[in-house]
């Protein structure tokens, strides 16, 4: 660990040292005050800064008559912007943009969508100085692909990279703004690759909807099989899921995913930004924190991290364990524990004291065998001891230490018999 830390520290220092040699003022944005700078620019509402020199527009989504609008603002500290010129043919010809006193400009043209435009912008101040023209280059092209074809192409690439376990290729298809964080997905997919072998996924698109800011919502059916590298066992699951792709530099990239996850199952709770709204008993693939791979019904998969047994166990809690009336129990290690998870009190009737742990009561008669441990719905502050009676079913959320679903069955001697299911 220490060696690794030193290595990172050394590389970071080396990077800083070398950075100093190349350009001392790398952190100064906007450079010196007398330069002509481009404050911002949009081409058909897409920010120039998001383009990286390339912009692909879909013919289907262009405004009337393929009208293209370029607007922005140029500025200079010690003078005034005198003109803004636009070239669409690699600087061969220049056309004047409409310029306002404050440096904002607008230029419109009607695109021939069969052409590629090599765009440059030149802002000239009243002393004749110009901006860095080369940096404004954008290659503007038009795609006749409809969005659904592009979605299919993107999903094909994502699934191919995932199935061939090519992490570099896979991560190149993930948006820099991936909601839970690209590095979190990177780690989760790496673990998937360690746990899964011979991944096969087929998908069948249900629905594609797009929005003007470049995001595309995709809902699809999937049919998947993997072999667990630990056990050599084949797991298959199928069902429906949803994800959002985002248009970046003319390419759709993965932006967010809902449960059931297609990628990054090894850290599902940190990757899935929601659950699809369905009630289904379809088998769903899950991975536990200990790397156990299994399939469980979809409704249970929401609460099941797959790693620990969800079997129903029975304990008899002795009220005289701590003192005359109290008992505590550690569900993780299955033992009495003075700093344990749950306190039972039988002073004036049976009481449950979950301390600060969120808790909820389930309907009487709830079957532990057919009911998953709830993932949500816990009252955040139960407010101290709660009176309970035999037959009641309760769920307690111990945070990182797991959740338990329990039923108070009967009294025996100085104790109470409890059936429970525990998940970490």
């Amino acid at each position, binding site marked *: 660990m220490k060696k690794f830390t030193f290595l990172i520290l050394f590389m970071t220092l080396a990077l800083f040292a070398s950075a100093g040699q190349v350009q001392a003022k790398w952190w100064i944005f906007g450079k010196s005050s007398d330069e002509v700078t481009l404050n911002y620019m949009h081409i058909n509402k897409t920010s120039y800064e998001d383009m990286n020199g390339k912009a692909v527009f879909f013919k289907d989504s262009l405004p009337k008559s393929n009208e293209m609008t370029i607007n922005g603002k140029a500025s200079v500290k010690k003078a005034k912007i005198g003109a803004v010129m636009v070239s669409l043919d690699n600087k061969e010809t220049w056309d004047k943009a409409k310029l306002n006193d404050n440096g904002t400009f607008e230029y419109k043209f009607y695109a021939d969508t069969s052409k590629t435009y090599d765009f440059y912008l030149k802002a000239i101040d009243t002393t004749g100085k110009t901006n860095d023209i080369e940096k404004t280059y954008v290659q503007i092209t038009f795609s006749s692909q409809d969005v659904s074809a592009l979605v299919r192409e993107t999903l094909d690439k994502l699934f191919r990279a995932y199935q061939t376990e090519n992490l570099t290729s896979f991560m190149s298809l993930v948006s820099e703004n991936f909601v839970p964080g690209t590095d979190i997905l990177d780690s989760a997919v790496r673990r998937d690759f360690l746990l899964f072998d011979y991944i096969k996924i087929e998908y*069948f698109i249900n629905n594609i*909807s797009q929005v003007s800011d470049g*995001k595309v919502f995709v809902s699809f059916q999937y049919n998947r*099989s993997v072999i667990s590298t630990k056990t050599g066992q084949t797991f298959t699951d199928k069902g429906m899921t949803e994800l959002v792709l985002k248009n970046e530099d003319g390419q759709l990239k993965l932006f967010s995913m809902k449960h059931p996850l297609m990628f990054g199952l090894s850290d599902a709770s940190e990757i899935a930004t929601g659950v699809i709204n369905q009630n289904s008993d379809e088998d769903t693939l899950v991975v536990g924190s200990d790397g156990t791979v299994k399939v469980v019904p979809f409704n249970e998969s929401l609460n099941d991290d797959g790693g620990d047994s969800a079997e129903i166990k029975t304990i008899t809690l002795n009220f005289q364990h701590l003192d005359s009336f109290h008992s505590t129990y550690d569900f993780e290690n299955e033992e009495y524990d003075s700093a344990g998870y749950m306190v039972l009190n039988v002073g004036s009737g049976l009481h449950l004291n979950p301390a600060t742990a969120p808790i909820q009561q389930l*309907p009487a008669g709830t079957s532990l065998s057919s009911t998953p441990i*709830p993932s949500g719905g816990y009252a955040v502050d139960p407010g101290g001891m709660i009176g309970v009676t035999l037959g009641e079913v309760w769920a307690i959320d111990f945070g990182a230490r797991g959740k338990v679903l329990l039923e108070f069955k009967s009294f025996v001697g100085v104790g109470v018999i409890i059936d429970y299911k525990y998940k970490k």
Partner: protein
Amino acid sequence: MKQKCKIIFAVMIVFSFAVSVFSQDSSSVVNSTTTTNSTNNDLINLTVPLTLATDLTPTQEQSAKTTDVRINFGGQVSYNDITGPGKASSSLSQGVRHFENLGINVRGSKNDLKYQLNVSGRATNDERVDPIFVALTSLQARFEYKNHFLNTGDIFESFSQYSLNTSLKGASYKYNNNSGRYPEISAVFGSAYPRWESWFRNEKARALNRTAYGANVKQEVTDTLKFGITALKSDDSQRITDTDPLYNNTLYSLDGEYRPIPGLSISGEFAMSQTELEANSTATKTSYNGNAFKLEIVGDEDPSRVVLGYERVNPEFESLLGSSIKDRERASARWRYKYTPNTTFDSRFTWYRNSLNDTSKSTNNYKPEIGVNIKRIFDRKYSNLNFNIKLDQKNSSANNSSDYFTDLGYRDRFIGLDVDAGAGFTSYNVDKNTRETLDYSGRLSVSTRKSFEKVILKPALNASSNYIDDHINNTTDKIFEYSIGLGVDLPDSKLTSNFKFGQNVLKASAGDDADSLFLNAGIYYRPDVFFGIKDCTLFARAMMNDFAFQTDTRNFNEKSFSMGISFPLDFKI
């Protein structure tokens, strides 16, 4: 259900009527006779693509028509054969299976009005594809009139990340005037059903009813400052099982972006939620409020790009239609530095933790990472070297883990062969003797493309291997996979084909060894015109997977042969 069907049919009829009205030439007189003729014309015009396909000039009458119709059809029939004692593990359905997709897109304009309708459906008898035999997969109608936009059916309005980032079935309206600094106003109403069959209460697509409505206003205040305000309400009803939680959620969000100087942008969002939860059918309702906040600062000026981010989503924040991971605080920094035009360093650091209300139960995650990418190394035109080191550390009261990842990748072209090679080393460590695993991996891919007079050949070779050493359980798992492929294209004959054969071997010292052989082949014929239809694709595919395990009773073999056709039909009405 009947009522909903009626509503849908009514909407479709109204839309069809609207299309027929708007598609009339302005000189046409709309009366019952004309409408009848129009219907007849529709039938006649179905043959238009066939005549267009033979490159006849469109008639004046056709060019006057302003509504474009595209019908996409794709269908295939498969025969799957699964044998062996472990055939229950197959992901295929035994026997003859069919699969058809039909999509209709209608788009046109009349003066300032633009309209579009998309309807698509799917039929299949393969339950692995879809448990519903005939499904309505998409239904959308869009209208655009000057600065007004109306969407109905499947709608996707992305208000902001925390508030609304999912598709609804309903209607949305947007006012968007680009001619000045006018606010962009959107309103939405709909149900968050995953598919139309859920709306129809189909037993195989059961989902509770999550009705949502809300509005969003986006305003550009100055050239460098813009913000958006959202109010969104969602209300759950029609529980499927007694244990389904029902949420009633109201969410307010404020998001914005500020670009104070060129190259620097500061963006963020703050959202508050008020939630009323009925955890199950007998539970009393509980109420709680939560909030979420995120801020991102991006500095982008050559040679550096720096991204700083912070986000905190508290445990009581509920975003049922947006995207967030609740009960998490995260901070990240990324610095990408272009040392030379061909050498880029990339370093990042992410920290996040959960259980914000009780830090004694938190898991703290630290992820530092550094990498370098060098193009044209050794002055080779196609070379690309990538080296990356990453640490993934988790600390909690239960245990601590430290995973180290090291990757090296190299791409180049040698004597006309594209080579992509990579090697990786990963060390997984969890304390208390829980886990100590080393994973060594390597992959190699070699491919090329050779064009001859009438044939293009695309051979490819892929091989990869993993060696997983588990020090706790004293086991070693070995994985080896290779495949050889060949693509053959005959451009003059409009034929493309591919063939792939490979083997995947898993030697699992603690579990079952697996040895899988696979074979895929496909041939695609894309004639210029096929029975008068343009852009048609005919295909035949064959696939074989043979799974052999150490435990013989798990062995199975699956074979599949499928053939199909897909084509679009374009015409005007």
